[in-house]
Structure formats: structure tokens, C-alpha cells
């Protein structure tokens, strides 16, 4: 009984913190930081999707951002002046998720036999192929508008109110970035819920079985092919949803946003946080979105305070610190900051 009480209390507390976070951050640090929080929520969704593929099923995917790109571009094409199509988001987002899921299967099918690093390079190639196509499909027929990208994408409209516009409620002005924040957080919570349910399901256990030993899993009667494809499809679906949100939030997409470095970044979030462990992945997503921004803010002034002048280029220092943080975390916590208890046991032996 008390246990139950405690967990409800905890959830209420988390809910409260999530609800007031943008208001507090917006008032104290400014809307740019709320925007950072929005991105944190987006990246957490992405990382949770990739976590299914890498963390649960153990398939190293270096081209995950491609699904994000597919979702984003689908939204951009169906909801912008580019083709003059303005579908509502509740039609486009699920469609984006579906199409991204199909791409997931498309990638998964030919790569079922590959393992480890071979899979990594093929997925990397897949990601680059998608990006190159997005960059090039403006001739002979202009589909994606090429490197110029698609601008003036429709923001998501809820209850007749576009989320990019601010709204006054209960004496507080909720800016566009704040409204988007609430939407993203709600959806991220939904994805967390799905993730947790999946993890404890028959399918989730099958993924873990494949991750630990594919041959043994097969011997136990698991249809490894379907289960792996399902992992790719599920992961891709989450990527597609976050892509659509990204497009509506930025109101602009261009192929530059979907490079290999983005894939690597999302992978870092998963591994750094704790592969296969949902709270860990959330932590990883949060940290890796906020850290570079914090370094950006701090690199110049801190030097100023310590040495009286800016000795090192703050921009170089920012990335330098970020790289060192990646190394340091992995050295001290090789299984991630907040690993799954099963992994922890492995590490202990």
C-alpha cells in the first residue's frame, strides 16, 4: 500500500516538475533554453526509438537519423506551401510514422544476416543514401527542394491554435516553444510508456534473447527474422514521429539536419545513458542535449573569470569539453550512467 502511495507521489512530483519546468526556465534563462528543452524531449524520443534497435535487440544502427529524416520530410511535403498541401498534423504524423516504419523494414530485410560492425556500416550507408537522395531530388523533378530545404512548414495546430503562437493563460504567457514543449513531453511520455510495455512483453524478452545469443534464441523457437524486423520497424516508427515533430517545430527542414553526426549523437545518448534501460536513455538524451549548450554558454565567461581573459577559443573549448566528457563518462561508467540492472550484474562479475 505504502509502496503504491510512494510511486504515485513520485509520479505526481515528476509531473509537476515537467509541467513547471518551461515556465521556470523561460523566466530565468530565456526562451532559447526552453527551446533546448524541446530538443531534449525530441532527442529523448529519438533515443528511445534507437534504444529498441540497439539497446533491446542489440543491432548496431548508425543510420538511425534516416527515419527521422523520412518523418520530417513527409511532414514538410504534406504540410507546407512547397506543394501547396496543408494536411492536418493528426493525419501526417501517423502517416510519417508508418512510412518510416516501412523504411525500417526496408533496411532491416537485406541486413538480417549481418552482424555487429558489418551491420553498422550498412546502416550508416543507408542513412547517407537517404540524405543524398533528399539533397538531390530537386531535379529533374523537384520533390524535396534539394539543399535549399523546405521552409514555412505549418506548425501543429491544436484546438484551432497554432503552437508557434503564444497564448495567455492564468496570467502566464505561454510562448510557442513552451506549447511545443508540452506536446513533446506528452508524446515522449507516451513513447516511454510504449517502451516499458514492450520491454516487459513477450517481444521485449525475445529481443533481449537475440541480443544475448541469437543462435540460442533461434533454438528456443523465436522467429529471429520477424522479431528483428519488428525491432527495426518499431524503432523507425518512433524516429518518424519525432521527425514530423521536428519539422513542425522548426518550420524548416533541409538535408543538412540529417547527417551522420546526428546518428552518432543519438547513439551516444543511448550508450552513454545506459543501453536498454529506459530511464538511462532518457538521462543520456537530456545530458547530451543540454551539455553542449551549457558549455557554449559557459566556455567564454568561465575562462574570463578564471584567467581574466579568454585564452582558448570558446567554440573550440566547448567541443573539446564535450569530447572529453564522452570519454570520461565511458571510462568511469562503461555500461552507461544509469545501466540496466542485468548489465550491472554482468559488469560486477
Amino acid at each position, binding site marked *: 500500500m505504502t509502496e503504491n502511495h510512494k510511486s504515485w507521489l513520485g509520479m505526481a512530483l515528476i509531473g509537476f516538475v515537467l509541467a513547471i519546468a518551461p515556465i521556470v526556465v523561460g523566466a530565468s534563462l530565456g526562451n532559447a533554453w526552453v527551446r533546448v528543452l524541446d530538443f531534449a524531449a525530441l532527442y529523448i524520443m529519438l533515443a528511445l526509438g534507437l534504444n529498441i534497435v540497439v539497446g533491446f535487440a542489440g543491432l548496431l544502427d548508425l543510420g538511425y537519423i534516416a527515419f527521422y529524416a523520412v518523418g520530417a520530410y513527409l511532414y514538410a511535403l504534406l504540410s507546407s506551401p512547397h506543394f501547396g498541401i496543408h494536411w492536418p498534423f493528426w493525419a501526417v504524423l501517423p502517416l510519417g510514422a508508418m512510412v518510416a516504419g516501412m523504411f525500417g523494414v526496408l533496411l532491416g530485410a537485406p541486413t538480417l544476416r549481418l552482424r555487429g560492425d558489418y551491420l553498422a556500416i*550498412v546502416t550508416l550507408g543507408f542513412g547517407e543514401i537517404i540524405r543524398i537522395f533528399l539533397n538531390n531530388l530537386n531535379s529533374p523533378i523537384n520533390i524535396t527542394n534539394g539543399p535549399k530545404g523546405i521552409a514555412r512548414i505549418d506548425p501543429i495546430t491544436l484546438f484551432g491554435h497554432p503552437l508557434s503562437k503564444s497564448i495567455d493563460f492564468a496570467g502566464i504567457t505561454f510562448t510557442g516553444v513552451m506549447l511545443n514543449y508540452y506536446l513533446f513531453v506528452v508524446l515522449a511520455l507516451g513513447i516511454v510508456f510504449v517502451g516499458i510495455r514492450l520491454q516487459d512483453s513477450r517481444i521485449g524478452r525475445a529481443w533481449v534473447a537475440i541480443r544475448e545469443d541469437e543462435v540460442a534464441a533461434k533454438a528456443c523457437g523465436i522467429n529471429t527474422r520477424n522479431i528483428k524486423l519488428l525491432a527495426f520497424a518499431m524503432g523507425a516508427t518512433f524516429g518518424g514521429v519525432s521527425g514530423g515533430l521536428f519539422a513542425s517545430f522548426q518550420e524548416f527542414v533541409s538535408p543538412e539536419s540529417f547527417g551522420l553526426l546526428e546518428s552518432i549523437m543519438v547513439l551516444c545518448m543511448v550508450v552513454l545513458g545506459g543501453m536498454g534501460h529506459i530511464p538511462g536513455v532518457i538521462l543520456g538524451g537530456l545530458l547530451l542535449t543540454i551539455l553542449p549548450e551549457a558549455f557554449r554558454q559557459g566556455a567564454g565567461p568561465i575562462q574570463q573569470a578564471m584567467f581574466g581573459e579568454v585564452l582558448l577559443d570558446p567554440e573550440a573549448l566547448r567541443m573539446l569539453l564535450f569530447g572529453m566528457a564522452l570519454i570520461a563518462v565511458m571510462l568511469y561508467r562503461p555500461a552507461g550512467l544509469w545501466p540496466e540492472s542485468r548489465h550491472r550484474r554482468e559488469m560486477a562479475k
Partner: protein
Amino acid sequence: MDIFLQQLINGLTLGSIYALVALGYTMVYGILGLINFAHGEVVMIGALSSLTIIRPLADSGLPGPVVVLIGLFFAVLVCMALGFTVERVAYRPLRNAPRLAPLITAIGVSIVLQQLAMLIWGRSYHSVPALLPSGTHEVLGATFTEVQVIIVVVAAVTMMGLVLLVNRTRLGRAMRATAENPAIAGLMGVDANRIISLTFVIGSALAALAGVLVSANYGIAHYNMGFILGLKAFTAAVLGGIGNLAGAMVGGVLLGVIEALGAGYIGDLTGGVLGSHYQDVFAFFVLIGVLIFRPSGLMGEKVSERA
């Protein structure tokens, strides 16, 4: 015909560059099963540090190739020290960690090296003085430069040297034993840590060599040059069968030739719909195609399952 031959020459040079870098990837992978994502950055450090020596010596009156050799010597030293340090700091502590942990530190190292290089050598592109013999020759209407010949020869010789090292020497036997099973190799009196360190040091020396040749070939060096090069080389190594020295060479050359012929001909074959902007797409399609039929690369052995 002369155009086709020229494209082959282009592809062969480009491929040899990939191969030189890929050899470093493959050596480390062969022994540790680790993708050393920072290898491309070591190549970059090699190029830039050699330039630091070459620049002031360029007008000293010493013959060009001698200056380049001095620069190369310096770059090799720097890179060897770097390779040794990186292995010690970022990879060794993670020898028994989950498989993806060293991948993340490798990415971290890559970022750190890039930013350090930017702090040391600045943001601008550096021109590399043309000190190697730069004459142009013509065969059947196709031209090639002496630097290109040097690159192809050096890549081939290096590959053969490494094959001999691995297969014929005591050190090579120790390397193979360590690759097979470090613990058992240890029981047989092989100091696995030392061997792994040595592999990194040799791989980094190769990176320095590659860096010097790449910058000499393109006449330009920049702190950002390593990443794409490393990526292509990694692709080449996988194409050939990662962990296999001859495979790295074959994969590199094949990738170079595919890129050259792809950029040169697919545009005309498809009526201009798919032009040279799809060059990398062809390369990746070929890679995926090869891996579907040979899941461990062209010359790779069947990989044991690593969890």
C-alpha cells in the same frame, strides 16, 4: 578509351589512399575487434604535423623529397605517441567493457583531436608545398602524376610489408595469438597489452604516412580533413573484409574505382537523371550488395559471434 583509362587511374589513386587509411583501421580491428573511429583524425594530425616541419624547411635548399622524409619522420613520431596515448587513455580501460563503450570513447577522442588541431593549427586551410616530384606523364592519352605513382606504390608496399609482418615474424605471431584470444596468448608468454599497444603504434605510423601522402596529393590540409576520409576508409575496410590486410587493399581500390567510374559514367548511362551527385550512393549500394552475398566482406573470414 583514354577517358576510361584516366578514370581507372583516378580510381586507383583514390583507392590507394583509402587503402592506406583502411590498413590502419583493419590492423586495430583485427586484433581488438574495435572500430577506431579516431583513426581518420590521426591521419589529419599526421598531415598537419608534417606540414609544421615541411613549411619552414621548404625553402632551405634541401632537396624536396628529403624535406618530405624529415616531415614524415616527425609526423610518424607524433602519431605514434598519439596512438600510444589514445590506446592507454581511451581504449585499454575498456577492454572488457560492453562492446559499444569503446565506440563512444573513440567518437570522443575524434572530437577532442579535431578541436585540439583547430586550436593548434587554426581554422584555415593550409597549402602543402609541392616537394615530391610533380611531373605529369601521359599514357594513351591519360595523364598521371609522379605523386600518384608514389601513392599507389607506397600503399601496395605497405600492405605487403604488413602481411609479412603479421604472417612471418615473431611479433606477427604474437599479434595473431592476441587477436585469437588475449588470455590464452598471455598464458603462452605473450604480453597482450604490449602487443596491442604496438599494434596501435604501428597503425598510427601508417596514419601519419597516409596523412603526408594525402596532403601531398591534394596540396591542401585542414583540421577537418580526417573525418570523411576515415569514413570512406572504414567503408573500404568493411568492403574488403574488416580485419583482413589484403582485404583492406582490395576494398580500398575497389571503392576508389567504383567512385570514379560511378561519377564518370552513370550520369550518361541514365540519361542524366542520376549524375555525379549520386557518387556516394553507388558506393554504398555496391557495399550493401557485396555484404548481402558475402556478409563478412570480400576477403573476410566468417566472423565469430561477438556479443
